[in-house]
């Protein structure tokens, strides 16, 4: 019997169906490796029924909703699987909310949200795949979202 390239995890999160080539960006938004000392496995360009995909497995960590939103911004087709004792206890597709607050910096350098004002960045969803968001304040669409995630 063939052996899996990445072994199942006991506890943690499996992020599946990441856009091929985007696993590194997912790691970046999850602040890995700085944020965890547990094992993290990455598989890129894995063949699947619907073409290639990337997979990230993070042991001993369950993603919070804010982190899931961040992933949706860069990998809109990703699925999140929460694993406890080798069992998938939760599985859902990422979905961007209509309003994205405090997780992306506006790419417009002269937007007031980038000044020292007591407000969080705020974006309105234009489309979720490919992800496109518009700043609530300056009304500009943000370019290169992955680079602007806080």
């Amino acid at each position, binding site marked *: 019997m063939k052996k899996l390239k990445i072994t199942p995890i006991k506890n943690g999160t499996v992020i599946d169906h990441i856009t091929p080539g985007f696993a590194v960006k997912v790691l970046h938004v999850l602040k890995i490796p700085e944020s965890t000392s547990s094992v993290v496995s990455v598989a890129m360009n894995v063949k699947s029924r619907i073409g290639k995909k990337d997979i990230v497995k993070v042991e001993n960590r369950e993603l919070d909703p804010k982190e899931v939103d961040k992933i949706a911004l860069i990998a809109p087709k990703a699925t999140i699987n929460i694993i406890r004792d080798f069992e998938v206890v939760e599985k859902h597709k990422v979905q961007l909310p209509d309003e994205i607050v405090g997780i992306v910096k506006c790419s*417009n350098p*002269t*937007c*007031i*949200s980038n*000044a*020292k*004002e*007591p*407000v969080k960045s705020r974006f309105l969803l234009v489309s979720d795949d490919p992800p496109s968001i518009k*700043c*609530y*304040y*300056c*009304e*500009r*669409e943000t370019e290169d979202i992955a680079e602007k995630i806080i």
Partner: protein
Amino acid sequence: MDFKKRDVISIKDFSKEEINYILNYTKKMVPYAKGEKHTDILREKILSSLFFEPSTRTRLSFESAMNRLGGRVIGFADPSATSQKKGESLADTIRMADSYADAIVIRHPQEGAARLSTEFAESPVLNAGDGAGQHPTQCLLDLFTIITELKKIKGNKIVLLGDLKYGRTVHSLAYALSLLGAELTFVSPESLKMPKEVINECKEFGAEPSSISNLERAVKDADVLYVTRIQKERFPDAEEYNRVVGMYKVDVDLLKNAKEGLIIMHPLPRVVEIDPEVDKTPHALYFKQAFNGIPVRMALLSLILGDKKL
């Protein structure tokens, strides 16, 4: 239709019906704006006028509009004389101004400043221009000028010329003109083309704006030629500015093949883009357009602050 205590931040916050309502109400304001009739419907009302960036027409016409309605104006035209210089946040300045007045009008160099202000003010906020962002009252006065001169907006061929990338007035205007059914043509230097997102917004209303580089061809069957200044202050580098400034010029030669009823508009100030000789032609409408800032702003202030309508 109720506009009481409504913020005026972006033309996109208003429906087609609301825009038409404001434009119709503006007509009633004209004799008051000219000083032929008098009113004090905004007596005891105070407008806080916060100009963090230089302005001549917008600031003076807001002040004139408030005075013509019997209200009063406090504020500043030079932020160097305020606590901003000491590092005060915009949010704190707005909280302060909010407690001193019944409405706030703000011009600020950063995009989104007016929208942010609404979060810290109980009173209505009117955006008088936020950086390269929105300038809704300019947009309304432009629409009012076209309607006054050509009776309608729908179906008219309107050419937007000049700095279509950084020019804040043309973005709001392209949106509103598309909403109201005008046919748009964009003419600009390659590096100052209308942003893709603005074109997409126009298309959402069924408009099919075309972009061409030949001004003569665009002007030939146009009903409105809307000219904008290439804004030096919005350019990241001087070299690029020098390359494009003066690329298009509106002069009497250009107008030889234009329609008799063509109107030429400009938000002003102009520099070199319209030859002064054009001022003498019946096409030139920019000074009348500048006057229209008063009745439009009177209409808005009256609808937002007034207890009764005129």
